[in-house]
């Protein structure tokens, strides 16, 4: 399966990348995507996650073609 992973703001800086294009098998959840892309780094506690631009929990399912994003609490407005 193909998963596009995107990182924003301070989380982008701390992982050192804006995105990953994963070709992988056996990733069931958003949490699995993080662990596959960042095996040596835990997802920071207050992080938010989105699949295809909607907010989700890390336990949410992912499927082929999804865009998964990880980012810190938002500070707009």
């Amino acid at each position, binding site marked *: 399966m193909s998963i596009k992973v995107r990182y924003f*703001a*301070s989380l982008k800086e701390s992982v050192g990348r804006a995105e990953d294009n994963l070709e992988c098998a056996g990733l069931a959840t958003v949490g699995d995507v993080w662990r596959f892309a960042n095996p040596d780094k835990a997802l920071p506690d*207050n992080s938010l996650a989105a699949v295809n*631009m909607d907010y989700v929990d890390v336990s949410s399912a992912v499927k082929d073609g999804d865009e998964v994003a990880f*980012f*810190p609490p*938002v*500070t*707009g*407005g």
Partner: protein
Amino acid sequence: MAIKIYAEPFDPWQEIQAHQHSATELAGKFGATNIFIGTMRDFNEGDDVLGMTLEHYPGMTEKQLEKIVTEAMRQWPVIDALVVHRVGDILPNEPIVLVAVWTSHRGDAFDASRYIMEALKSRAPFWKKELLKSQTERWLVKNTDGYL
């Protein structure tokens, strides 16, 4: 409903007037308008701030803002709404966000405008990084409850 993301400075008064004039269905029909404008200050948390960079998640930003405005329109009888948000490099005194809501009655205008602002603050994917006078940069960690 209109949602706009600008990478350049915008004039909130021009935005509101242009929207009001183009929405011909508004003429004579709205009795109340509530407007909120967030403007960059030259200080924050006790430090002098020279500027700010606003990062966003293109696509998700628009999707979430449309969702928020749609929720407001479902909860209150809103005739029309406009949301404008800056991204990129911002200087003190420049507007960051504009929310305008047109309704028949004032209670709905206040409620819907505030709902949109609070939801935007907690759900729209924007992130602010401040450049301090000391030349250090810092990410804002969390939006406040609006009273700090």
